């Protein structure tokens, strides 16, 4: 057995992962505009859409706009897909996203179609979402997303989307 190399200090790992995630999410103006954030546990991401008045569609109920919910789910799907696509290169140190200008970041997956089920009224409070990649092919990917508010088991929306993956990065081994 070859001697194992010493594991990296946990702070170094966390900094690298959080830095990469921040770089991916902060590069997109529309994510910042809606105020959507991401939390990370290992490789698992949770999208968070903190409530604000501008996300409301029906002021009488009041209820979140279907459009803010749809965008929240799509953003969570794309970021999760991209995150999983880049994970190996990030972990192996082949890719470092921190401090890169937007034009130097890897290309994003493109949405082909996106279908949202509105299961319950979106309440005027924070919303959370997690995506599951059900197919990650070289060219196409399928992603399911679930969103909830107060109770993890009571989804307020779910979605299914198909995506075209970016062309392989030519500097992946550099």
């Amino acid at each position, binding site marked *: 057995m070859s001697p194992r190399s010493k594991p990296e200090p946990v702070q170094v790992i966390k900094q690298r992962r959080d830095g990469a995630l921040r770089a991916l999410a902060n590069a997109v103006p529309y994510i910042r505009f809606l105020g959507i954030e991401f939390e990370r546990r290992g490789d698992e991401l949770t999208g968070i859409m903190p409530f604000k008045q501008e996300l409301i569609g029906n002021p009488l109920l009041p209820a979140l706009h279907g*459009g803010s919910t749809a965008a929240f789910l799509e953003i969570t799907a794309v970021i999760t897909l991209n995150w999983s696509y880049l994970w190996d290169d990030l972990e192996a140190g082949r890719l470092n996203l921190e401090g890169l200008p937007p034009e130097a970041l890897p290309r994003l997956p493109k949405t082909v179609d996106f279908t949202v089920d509105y299961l319950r009224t979106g309440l005027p409070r924070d919303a959370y979402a997690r995506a599951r990649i059900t197919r990650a092919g070289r060219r196409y990917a399928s992603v399911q997303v679930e969103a909830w508010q107060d109770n993890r088991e009571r989804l307020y929306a779910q979605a299914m989307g198909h995506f075209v993956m970016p062309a392989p990065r030519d500097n992946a081994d550099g």
Partner: protein
Amino acid sequence: MADMTALARQFIQALPHSVMLGMQPQEMGEGVASISMPYKDELVGDPVTGVIHGGAVSALMDTCCGAAVMCHPENGGGTATIDLRIDYMRAATPGQTIVARATCYHITRSVAFVRAVAMDDDTENPVATATGAFTVEAKR
């Protein structure tokens, strides 16, 4: 035509999220609605190309489909989205206004069926299409 525009304007201004995205009503009546969304930097999804985020197009489509249901003569009042599917055919050209047009093509006592198209200046090639089901309120 004048009151159709006024109705559409009232409808949009009552929706904080639609105001946030800068949506502007074009027309609304008899189960058909048209809403435009001028280009602005905050809506960008790809900072390199400047292309609008799909989520913003979704929001426009959802608003427009909802507006079409609300102005259908068979619908008693408000509506909510049951489901909405968006197909993204191509990236909208950066800098151009996106215009969505939705038609409520069938309505029952409980469900309204809607389809919509979103265009930029190249009206021959849609940016996206949508199909959805919406709730219907009983007429009083």
